């Protein structure tokens, strides 16, 4: 039962994530991203943490994506004429993604010979989730926010037109 739910939501998450970058219409991309976030939330729920699953929907799918959509609709962004996924760039991108995946997998296999326990930390209740985020993983958590900021700056730099 859990396995079926996991594979279904994982498939939906990957498929909608592809739609996010392959679509020319920014509003369709935004809706696809909402679908991705909701299916990720299902996976969090399956991992035994309803609290984090619900937070995922409230914060990302609920609050942030509404703002995205609001801005997109206010600015009335037109569809992109030139698709980002076209021609040689698509092949190069897919190739790069596969290479990255291979390197990561290879590193994983080299470093770790036997699989560890699936879930070492118990985040099943809201108290445990709070302790995990604000005590055990506080540096990882903060580092992730810096990573998101770097991704944001990178996206702006890529999207900005040359003067």
């Amino acid at each position: 039962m859990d396995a079926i739910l996991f594979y279904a939501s994982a498939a939906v998450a990957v498929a909608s994530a592809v739609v996010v970058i392959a679509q020319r219409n920014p509003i369709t991309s935004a809706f696809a991203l909402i679908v991705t976030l909701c299916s990720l939330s299902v996976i969090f729920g399956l991992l035994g943490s309803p609290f984090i699953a619900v937070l995922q929907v409230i914060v990302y799918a609920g609050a942030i994506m509404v703002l995205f959509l609001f801005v997109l609709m206010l600015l009335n962004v037109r569809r992109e004429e030139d698709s980002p996924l076209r021609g040689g760039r698509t092949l190069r991108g897919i190739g790069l993604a596969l290479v990255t995946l291979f390197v990561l997998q290879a590193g994983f296999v080299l470093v770790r010979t036997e699989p560890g326990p699936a879930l070492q930390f118990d985040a099943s209740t809201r108290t445990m989730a709070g302790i995990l985020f604000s005590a055990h993983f506080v540096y990882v958590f903060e580092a992730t926010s810096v990573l998101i900021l770097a991704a944001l700056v990178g996206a702006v730099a890529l999207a900005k037109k040359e003067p």
Partner: protein
Amino acid sequence: MSPSPMVQDLVLAAVKIALVVGALLGLFAVMTWVERRTLAFMQYRLGPNRTGPFGLLQPIADGIKLFFKEEAMPAAANKWGFLAAPVVAVSTALLAVAVLPYGPPFALPSWGLLPEWLRGLRVQVQIATIDVGLLFIFAITALGVYGIVLAGWSANNKYSLLGALRSSAQMFSYELALGLSWVGVIMLAGSFQIADIVNAQAGGFWRWNAFVQFPAFVVYFLAATAEVARIPFDLPEGEAELVAGFHTEYSSMRFALIQMAEYINMITVSVLAANLFLGGWHSGIPGLPSEGLLGFVWWGGKVAVLLFVFVWLRGTLPRVRYDQLMNLGWKVLIPVAAVWILVTATGVALFPSVFAVAGR
């Protein structure tokens, strides 16, 4: 021979889902009739009174009429978005009701046609009992906006788009106040589960959160009215300026689905108000019993009064202006709710025995 525990759980869950969804759809039909008749009497009219006794069959007539109407779709509409929007609206509305308790826990009779394993079993009409009940409702409410946004955007009509913009701005402004108004209630009960919050209010009406948490109750009621876009906060639809707002281009059963989502949301916030602030199924008067079926009477009465208040407001108040709406949300409700959280937190921290915080 009794079936395995998993089958028992599945059967119970299926029965509960059928019961709750069936009751909600029935209540939706009845509410359209109640709303039209009550509004008519408030305006010295009679309202629909030709179909059946007192016009009670009017919802069925409306349903049949809507079924046979043409389902029009604008040529320039985004087809998939246009088709998906009513589905998103109804499914989010029906998801939110999954964690609400409907009435008190009760024991099934130990006789009659019930199978062996069901006799005397203690059950509660609540589909899912999860640790984060109230947060789940908050998450689903946040997703409910997308049904409206998708409907308004995909129709490719300027009135629809304006309605959708207004409603997304309104909803995420008032969602904040709505969420903040729950915090004091959660602190007093020490739990996110709605049944626990109801039981924390047992013992008399002076322990109801509507009195203990009076500012939070006022904030909740105003924010909930705005959240379900009822008059005086129905700017997303504002027919004088926007034709019909986000559902201008919808007809036939798709229109009915959007209406259904709105009514179910209204019922959800009423049930939530009765459970969080009005003591749920507890009678509130010492000496009056609230066990078993009597609890359903108390609970149903509170929900019915709240639903009537929504209709009453619609018959009484004019629509507010957009700047008034935003000022009320951001400059009044959110600061009041935030200060009240501070007051409640201070009270709970300094006098834990007075508030008898449960779950610690």
